[in-house]
């Protein structure tokens, strides 16, 4: 083993030689003694020794040296962590402005040796210093150096070291337990322990103060420090899509930067002071150094990392859960909104529809009112003409053919255009070539016999004159017939309009629905001549309603069914009681069915001159049915396919709001 080294820097060569001589004498040559006049060189040599892991027991310095003065040299030695045990001694007199105070303040100086030293006192000082050195940094040299040491103080040092060791091992036990069973030491205890350890190992490292809102570290920075919060609160956040999102505030913990530092990643969260914050700020090297020297600190750090990971993990799970819940809520909100939109659109449609119906109702009522009188007058006038014109023609024998032609044309059943064409052909073949068959047919002549009969009324009449009478008489007859038909249709339309718009009939109690159906079937008997009608009348209670309007509903539904079913069709009428307070009427036919594209519109009014006669008569008929049924608080629905169409009416026994 190389002997321990003593370095000495001083300009006074004689003094140094004297010192070396005394040390040699005292120690019996136990030390290697090296001398310098340059502080910088001494520092360089000290570092070499440290690297070579040789023992540097003491450094003596004069104040005035080359390049670096003695005070700075001693301070530099003190700063070398591996040379902490090395005794730093001033070999100089103290005078004003000599920086001795500064040295003492820095803790850089262990003792001073006067240049004018007394050998006995120097020996005592050397003994004390060497003893301290061995205790602190070189216990392995005790065997070799013990004659030079102060054994009494060695003893007490060992005693206190043992008790320290015991304490330390107790604390280690505690820490080990706390690492495994994290509850035994509170966060505060751990933090306090860590602060104590760092203070102790690093000689009171830097404390820094941050103002509220101040950013302590920014995400993406290189991780180089940890912060142990002594006072105040922080929050951790990241910038997401240009917005700062806070991830941890309660869960931030008291130690910041540890995760990034331990993972050696760039800083993950930015940290902002919430209140004024005072923190211990430690560099990576400081932490590493402290850990290497204190297993307790390492344990504390592991505990802190574990707890912080657990805490943040819990927080992450919370955040994830929250995101999940938010997503679910968003989805539900979206669905709700969609449903609301649909409802709104449906409501709007209904509103428009009911607005339209209201407008139509007003219009229809006005029209019905205005048309009522002229139509009535027209029907009367037609009736008068039907009496007066034949009367007029009958007053003279000369016009007998015209009068007869008028009657013929009036009574002539309307022909289809197809039948009309074949009739023309037939007449053309059997009549005289000079007679225009098509004009005769247009005038209402339906057979050769018809013509012969007219001809016989005035056998003396010339052909042309006869033809003229037939044509004119026939035209008058068919015109009268057309006026009669048309005014009847208009009158019926006016009645429909009145029904559709607003009823002027009154509410009646005790209406027998089966009876109203029977009445209608009686009226429609001629139209149903070619149909089979099957009736399933249930035992129905009477209800409150407007009988004439209900009859109108049955009329429309049965007429539609009959028209749809063609000839030899089958109509089925079924009435049943439904629950305690409703009745149900079904009118079914086996006709061709309502085309799919027409189905959504059949209850909407369509004004057409062919009202009641287009296709299967969907003019005002069904809208009236719907209006009447709804006025009675009921509903009307249908199902239709080729071969089976059913209209279903459900009526309450007491309509919810029937006017008196």
């Amino acid at each position, binding site marked *: 083993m190389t002997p321990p080294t003593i370095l000495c820097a001083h300009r006074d060569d004689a003094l140094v030689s004297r010192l070396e001589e005394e040390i040699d004498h005292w120690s019996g040559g136990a030390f290697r003694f090296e001398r310098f006049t340059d502080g910088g060189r001494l520092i360089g040599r000290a570092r070499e020794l440290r690297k070579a892991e040789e023992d540097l027991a003491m450094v003596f310095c004069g104040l005035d040296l080359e390049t670096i003065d003695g005070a700075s040299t001693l301070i530099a030695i003190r700063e070398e962590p591996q040379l902490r045990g090395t005794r730093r001694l001033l070999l100089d007199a103290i005078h004003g402005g000599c920086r001795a105070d500064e040295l003492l303040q820095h803790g850089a100086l262990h003792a001073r040796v006067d240049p004018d030293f007394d050998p006995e006192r120097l020996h005592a000082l050397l003994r004390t210093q060497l003893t301290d050195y061995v205790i602190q940094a070189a216990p392995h040299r005790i065997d070799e150096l013990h004659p030079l040491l102060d054994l009494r103080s060695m003893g007490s040092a060992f005693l206190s070291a043992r008790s320290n060791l015991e304490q330390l091992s107790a604390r280690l036990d505690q820490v080990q337990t706390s690492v495994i069973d994290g509850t035994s030491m509170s966060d505060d205890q751990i933090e306090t322990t860590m602060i104590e350890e760092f203070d102790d190992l690093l000689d009171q490292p830097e404390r820094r103060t941050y103002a509220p809102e101040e950013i302590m570290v920014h995400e993406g920075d290189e991780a180089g420090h940890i912060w142990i919060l002594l006072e105040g609160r922080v929050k951790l956040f990241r910038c997401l899509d240009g917005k700062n999102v806070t991830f941890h505030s309660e869960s931030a913990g008291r130690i910041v930067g540890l995760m990034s530092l331990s993972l050696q990643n760039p800083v993950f969260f930015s940290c902002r002071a919430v209140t004024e914050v005072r923190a211990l700020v430690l560099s990576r090297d400081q932490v590493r150094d402290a850990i290497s020297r204190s297993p307790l600190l390492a344990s504390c750090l592991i505990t802190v990392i574990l707890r912080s990971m657990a805490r943040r993990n819990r927080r992450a799970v919370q955040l994830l859960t929250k995101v999940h819940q938010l997503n679910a809520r968003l989805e539900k909100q979206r669905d709700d909104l969609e449903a609301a939109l649909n409802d709104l659109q449906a409501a709007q449609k209904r509103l428009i529809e009911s607005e339209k119906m209201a407008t139509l109702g007003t219009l229809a009522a006005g029209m019905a009112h205005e048309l009522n009188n002229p139509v009535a007058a027209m029907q009367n006038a037609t009736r008068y003409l039907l009496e007066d014109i034949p009367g007029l023609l009958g007053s003279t024998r000369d016009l007998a053919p015209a009068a007869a032609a008028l009657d013929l044309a009036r009574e002539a059943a309307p022909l289809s255009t*197809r039948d009309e064409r074949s009739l023309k052909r037939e007449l053309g073949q059997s009549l005289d070539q000079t007679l225009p068959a098509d004009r005769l047919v*247009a005038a209402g002549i339906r057979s050769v016999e018809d013509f012969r009969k007219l001809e016989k009324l005035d056998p003396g009449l010339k052909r042309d004159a006869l033809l003229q009478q037939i044509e004119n008489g026939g035209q008058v007859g068919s015109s009268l017939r*057309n006026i009669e038909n048309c005014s009847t249709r208009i009158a019926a339309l006016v009645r429909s309009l009145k029904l559709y718009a607003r009823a002027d009939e009154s509410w009646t109690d005790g209406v027998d629905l089966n009876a109203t159906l029977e009445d209608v079937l009686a009226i429609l008997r001629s139209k149903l001549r070619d149909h089979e009608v099957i009736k399933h009348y249930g035992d129905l209670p009477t209800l409150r309603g407007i009988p004439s309007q209900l009859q109108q509903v049955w009329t429309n539904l049965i007429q539609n069914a009959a028209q749809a079913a063609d000839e030899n069709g089958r109509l089925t009428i079924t009435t049943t009681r439904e629950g305690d307070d409703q009745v149900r009427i079904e009118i079914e036919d086996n006709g061709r069915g309502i085309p799919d594209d027409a189905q959504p519109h059949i209850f909407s009014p369509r004004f057409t001159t062919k009202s009641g006669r287009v296709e299967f008569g969907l003019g005002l008929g069904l809208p009236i049915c719907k209006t009447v049924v709804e006025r009675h608080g009921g509903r009307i629905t249908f199902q239709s396919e080729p071969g089976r169409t059913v209209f279903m009416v459900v009526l309450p026994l007491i309509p919810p709001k029937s006017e008196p």
Partner: protein
Amino acid sequence: MNAIAILSIEDEPEVREAIRRDLRPFETKFRIEAAEDVADAREALAQIEDDGDRVGLILADHRLPGETGVDFLTQLHGDGEHAAVRKVLLTGQADQQDTIRAINEGGLHHYVAKPWQAEALVKVVRDELTEYVLRAEDIDPMPYVAVLDGPRLLEKISRGPRID
């Protein structure tokens, strides 16, 4: 016999009779036929042609049970044989879309709105039939001078047969 026919298509019997009556000025020189729907009109058309006659003018309602009048005119216009037939829509119910289609695709020559005035209808029919006679290479205009637009027909006669 080679008569020229007027074919009207109208589903309401009263209206059909009114049209028939309004067409009386033409009954001495023209064959007048009526149909109540498009299917029937095809039948009437076939019968007219079977008899050796030809249709010179069609007077069609638009809204009919089954196919519409515009459908029929469009089809007729496109079949090649009946392009020369004069086509008149007599209706109160065709909307703008139908009318545009009738003109662009149905080769419609005239549109008469219901209700109509007899004189106006007679004038339209006279003008259209005159046009038909003038355009046909193989029809002698002479018999129609009294019933149709005499001066225009006479002008054609004075120029003599066209030599292409």
